[in-house]
Each structure stands twice: as structure tokens, then as C-alpha cells.
């Protein structure tokens, strides 16, 4: 029995009778988040020109910040003096930070991983820096997010060498122990372990089972969504959610396309993050159920419809595709407007799923959704197979 109050309590509200989908309430120090939830990514402590007030109105309950970027700018000292990222950026709801490790390995080709940590050269002053599990937690303790991530040993998802994958998986578990003992604010922040093992079922099983024995309040599933075939992706998600227990939230890292969200909710995932909705907005692309509209295309020149006729976001209420087409490549306003729609789109999809799970109509919703996305019934095999594994037959 622990005496300290928990920084997270998760209660399952309703469980789909057919699939593994469930809704829940995740009570965090700054906010109680309804799951399944999508977390937009605000890399540098801001969300593509959108105000915190606007994010609240779009119904964002938790957003993600990148430790690597925030640790560099504004830096730990400034964040400490500001009283944490919440206060610094004026965001009163929940926050999650990553460990910084993934950013480092993906951004900096020269990173070198040893048992001690991730060694790399600073892009700012070229000095040698060592990011250890302890250092990552120290920075994340300063940022003060509700949920923080363990430092994991990141290997490219499509990497093939078994020994290296095994080493990374086992090292991730060792680093988890170091992160947990370095954690200074366990009553205010939650460390999530990251299930590794890439596409190797045995290693992933081993990783998930090992994490299950730890005193943590939730789990992340990592090492996926890195360019692997979808047929390889979903079994790993399914394997992980099958092992991780039902009483704690499960967070699938880096997944955010609409079809992926629907499938993975059916497989029992509770939390998602992805840079895609805001990144694609920068290129003038607006999300709709069927995919996306590239508003730069000339076909929208006289199109007086909103991005999505059924959407109630501030952008769709006021602006036509034709107008967005006119300003999409020249005005920052266009990027803000499309970002607002895209984040709203993600929030609406998650809300629709929660409502259907609660009403007991989730399997019907999934079928209807897939039929809308693939009107010719050209369902990809991974969608058919993953859904049939949880009892939904598309054909």
C-alpha cells in the first residue's frame, strides 16, 4: 500500500461489448481528461498560432510538449522561474511531455546511444551533451507536465537486427528503473513506461510484461508508426494492449490518422498524439473523413463550401474553400484557420467514438466510418484483419 496520493486515477466508464474499445476518465493534477483522447502536439510550448483559449474551446483537454525543444528554448532555468510550462504558456489543462530521446535520435544523426544515455552534439553550440534517463526526468520535472515519459532506447522501426532490438528493449526496461528512481515529483507527475520491441512479438511481449510489474499509472506503446507496413503495425498494437492491464490508460505514440485512430481505439488504445494535423495545415491541407483537401489546388477557386459542411469549427462557420484557396500560400492566417479545423476534426472524431462506445454502437460506427472512407469497399487488408480480430467484419 502506498501512502502518497496518486497523480493519476483512471476509471473506465464504459466498455464496448464486442471490441476492446472503452471510454474512461483520466484524472490528472491539472485536468480530468475524457478518453479515448487525441493530444495535439505543441512543440515549442505553443500550437501553430492558436491561443490557449481557442484550444480550450475546441475541447482540447491535454496537449503535448517536446522536452528536447523546451529544454533548449526557453531552457530549464526560465521554465523553473516561470513556475513550469503550464504557467509559462498560459495553459490550465493537462500536459504531457516526451522524454526528448526520440527527438534527439531522429533530429540528430550523430547521436550515439550507450548504457549511460544518449550522447549527441548540441546543434546550438556544438558541445557534447549526454542525455541520461536521470537528466530527462530532471528536465521533465522542471517543465511540470501531468504525464512524463521515460527515456527509451529508440531504434528505427524498420530496423532488422535482432540483437540490437533486443538490447534496446532490455535497456529501455533498465532505463525505466533509473527514471522512476530519479523522479522527484511522483505526487504531481506520472511517469509512463514505453513498451518497446519494435516489430518483434516476443520482445514486445517481454517488454510489456516487465513494465506491468512496475509501480506506474499508465503505459505508452512506442517504436511504432515509423514507416513500417500497416500489416506489421496493428498486430504489435494488439499484442501490447492485450498484455497491458485494463485499469490503466494506454497511450500509442505518434499515431493520428483518422483510420488509424478508429482501428486502434477498437484495439483498446486510450491516448494518441501526432504532429500530422498541424503539420499538414502548414502545407494547406485540411482534414476530412475521406482524407484531406489540398486547398492550394485550383479546383477550390470558386468552391463556396466550407472545408467540411458538417463541421462546426470557427473556420467552417465563416470561411469558404474558395477564400482559403486565395490566401493559403501567402497568409499566416490561412495556416491558423486550417489548424483550427484540423485539430477540431481530430477532437470531433474522438468525441464521436466516445459517444458511440457509451451508447453501445461502436462496432456499427466503425463500419459506417470505414464505408465512408472507402466507398468502393476497397478496404486495405490491415483494416479488415485488425477489425476482424476484435469481431468487426467489414465485408
Amino acid at each position, binding site marked *: 500500500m502506498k501512502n502518497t496520493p496518486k497523480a493519476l486515477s483512471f476509471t473506465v466508464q464504459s466498455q464496448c461489448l464486442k471490441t476492446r474499445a472503452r471510454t474512461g476518465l483520466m484524472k490528472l493534477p491539472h485536468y480530468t481528461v475524457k478518453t479515448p483522447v487525441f493530444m495535439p502536439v505543441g512543440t515549442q510550448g*505553443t500550437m501553430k498560432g492558436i491561443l490557449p483559449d481557442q484550444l480550450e474551446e475546441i475541447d482540447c483537454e491535454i496537449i503535448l510538449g517536446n522536452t528536447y525543444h523546451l529544454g533548449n*528554448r526557453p531552457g530549464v*532555468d526560465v521554465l523553473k522561474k516561470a513556475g513550469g510550462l503550464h504557467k*509559462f504558456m498560459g495553459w490550465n489543462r493537462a500536459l504531457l511531455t516526451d522524454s526528448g530521446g526520440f527527438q534527439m535520435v531522429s533530429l540528430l544523426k550523430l547521436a550515439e546511444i550507450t548504457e549511460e544515455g544518449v550522447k549527441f552534439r548540441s546543434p546550438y553550440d556544438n558541445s557534447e551533451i549526454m542525455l541520461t534517463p536521470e537528466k530527462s526526468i530532471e528536465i521533465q520535472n522542471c517543465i511540470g507536465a501531468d504525464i512524463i515519459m521515460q527515456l527509451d532506447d529508440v531504434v528505427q522501426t524498420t530496423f532488422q537486427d535482432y540483437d540490437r532490438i533486443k538490447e534496446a528493449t532490455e535497456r529501455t526496461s533498465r532505463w525505466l528503473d533509473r527514471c522512476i528512481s530519479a523522479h522527484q515529483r511522483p505526487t504531481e507527475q506520472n511517469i509512463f513506461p514505453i513498451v518497446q520491441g519494435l516489430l518483434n512479438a516476443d520482445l514486445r511481449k517481454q517488454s510489456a510484461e516487465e513494465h506491468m510489474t512496475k509501480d506506474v499509472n499508465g503505459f505508452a506503446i512506442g517504436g511504432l508508426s515509423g514507416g513500417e507496413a500497416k500489416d506489421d503495425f496493428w498486430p504489435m498494437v494488439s499484442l501490447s494492449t492485450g498484455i497491458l492491464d485494463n485499469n490503466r490508460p494506454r497511450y500509442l505514440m505518434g499515431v493520428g490518422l483518422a483510420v488509424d485512430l478508429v482501428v486502434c481505439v477498437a484495439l483498446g488504445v486510450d491516448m494518441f498524439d501526432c504532429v500530422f494535423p498541424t503539420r499538414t495545415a502548414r502545407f494547406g491541407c485540411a482534414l476530412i473523413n475521406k482524407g484531406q483537401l489540398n486547398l492550394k489546388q485550383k479546383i477550390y477557386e470558386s468552391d*463556396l463550401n466550407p472545408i467540411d459542411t458538417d463541421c462546426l469549427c470557427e473556420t467552417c462557420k465563416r470561411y469558404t474553400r474558395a*477564400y482559403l484557396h*486565395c*490566401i493559403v500560400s501567402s497568409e499566416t*492566417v490561412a495556416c491558423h484557420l486550417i489548424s483550427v479545423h484540423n485539430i477540431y476534426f481530430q477532437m470531433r472524431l474522438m468525441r464521436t467514438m466516445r459517444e458511440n462506445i457509451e451508447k453501445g454502437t461502436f462496432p456499427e460506427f466503425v463500419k459506417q466510418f470505414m464505408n465512408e472512407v472507402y466507398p468502393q469497399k476497397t478496404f486495405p487488408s490491415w483494416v479488415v484483419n485488425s477489425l476482424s480480430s476484435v469481431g468487426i467484419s467489414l465485408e
Partner: protein
Amino acid sequence: MRFIVTKAGYGSERIGNLTGFVKCPNVVIETPTSGLFTQGGSIVHLTADVLARVFTNPQILVMPLTNSIQLETGVKAQNEGVTKFAGLPEHVACVTVNNFSEIVPPGHFEPGKIPLWTKHGKRMTTADKYMDIMEIFRPDMFLAIADGCMSVNETPKRLSKAVDRTCKLLNTCVDRYKASKELKNSALVGVVVGAQNQKKCDECIENILKHVDCISGVALEGITDGTDLLKEDTNQYCDIFKKIGGALPKELFRILEGCWNPAMTLSAIEHGWDIFDGTYAVKLTNMGIALKLSFDVTKENETPYLLDMVDERYKEDFSPILEGCECLTCKKHTRAYIRHLLNTREMLASVLLSM
């Protein structure tokens, strides 16, 4: 649309009201005022949703045709005017020709045509073509097309040509305007050029006054080609504000375009100028500078009114830009946060400073 002077000062300064906008009959816009500068029909950096958090009442949107001409196809298809198409139907549009906060390349003229420097290059435009676009845009007010883009030190020959051309263009605009059903709710604004030459300038004003039955206001051009006015010698301009202001009938509202600093703007207000184009705020925002004027005459304003937000000294400054300011930025965000956003080139920085 109507303009009335509600209060005249001891000098030439005055307070006035713009009223009678057909789409918003109860709206009163008090002058002197600054419009909000737009690009592509949108307030620079601010969406309609964010704008509504800053202003609850209708504002004048200053829309230079050079940066909004690409909206023509869409506005035409929708057929509800430019403010509706740009998502800002509750605001009042004032269409102008050029953006005088950026350098406009020197003219190269063909008879009856004015060059418009759009982002897709130069478009030679006749008064008729211009009026065609106005009939599609249907702004609440618009400037007559004019040859108004030149530096204050232009040669007498160029000045003289500019005045002649501007008069001819205005005559065409007036003819079209009188015959136009589409523009019956839009106010036409005449343009004065040639201020540097008494005789030619008088000619230009005379020509405007000839059409005073259908003209509601006057704009002053021909004193800048968009070169940086912030550093210019000021007396020369103050004299012009005074001279032209004094030569115009009181019942016409007066628009002054260009990126003037607060001191110059005050001088223009003193000489009876009513409406400014809002480019100063845009320019500062784009340079990462916050404007901090308390407008409180009871306090000596000794502190600098411009804050360079990129400066190292704001790194750990957790106070708002202006203590006591009611704007959303000051109420919720600190100098340190804005500095961070500027340093990371995040777009929210521009949003917050614009407010």
C-alpha cells in the same frame, strides 16, 4: 454612409462619427481612428475568431487592392461582397490601391493605366477595370484609383503628370460610380496628389470638389512611395498635413495612408486627419516589437514606448507588455513567453503582438 464632425478642437483637430453603414445601420465609428490593415482580405496574423476576442465592435478594414486582387474570382462567385468572402462580414471595408508600408516600385505608365504591384507581378489597370472590381467587392468605402505612388521629392514634371492623370482617373470613377447600382451603398473617396506643388495641388483638389455631391471623403497620396517613413524628416510632412487639411471642406472625412510613427500620426490628427491605415502596428509586429503607449496623459511618458521583444532582457521577465492593459495578450501572457515564441519563430508570437 455619413460623416459628421461632432466636435471641433481649438486648432484643426476634430472628433467625428462615421454612421449609416447599410449592412450595420446602428454602428457608429468614432474618428480619429486607425483601420486594421489587411492582406488577402484578412487582418494580418489574426483570424476572425481571434479578432472577435480583441474587438467586439465593427472596425474599418483597410484593404489594398494590390494584396487582395486575387480574391476577385471568389468574391464574384459568392456575390456577397468582399468582407463576407473574407470571413469578416460585420466589419467595414475601405479598399485602397497600394500598400504604402512597403516600397512600391516606381511607375511605368501607359496612357490611362496604373500599375498594380501584386504578388503575382505587375498588372496594368484602367479606371474601368478598377471600377469593375469595386462592383464585385462592394466595399463600404473605396478610394478612386489614382497615380499616387511617388516620393515626396518627386520632380515637378512627374508631379504635374500625376495630378493630370489622377484627375482623369477620378472623372472616370465618378461617371461609373454614378451609374452603378452595385455601388450605391459604397462611399467614394477622392485622392489628392501633388501636395508639393501649390498650383497643381489646387487643381487636384478643385477637381475633387467638382464631384463633391458624390464624394464622401478624401485621401492624401503622392507623398510616399512606401520607403520607410519612420526615419523621415518630419517637418516637411507636417506642413503638408496642415496645408491639405486646411484646403479641404470640413464635411469630408480624411484618410492618411502610410506607416507613420505615433508622433507623426498625432501631428496629422492635429491638422484634422481622421482615418489611418494601421500599417504601423503590422510593421512593428513583424519586427518583433511591442507597442506600449498608455494613452494616459496624466502620467509623464518617460519610458520608451517600443519594446524590442527579442531582447535578452525579457528572457525572465514575467510581467505583461503593458501593466493594466485590457488586451488579451497582456491579460494572459508574459514578456518572457513572447520572447520565447519569437526566438523559436512560432506564429503565435505575431498573433499576440498584433493584439
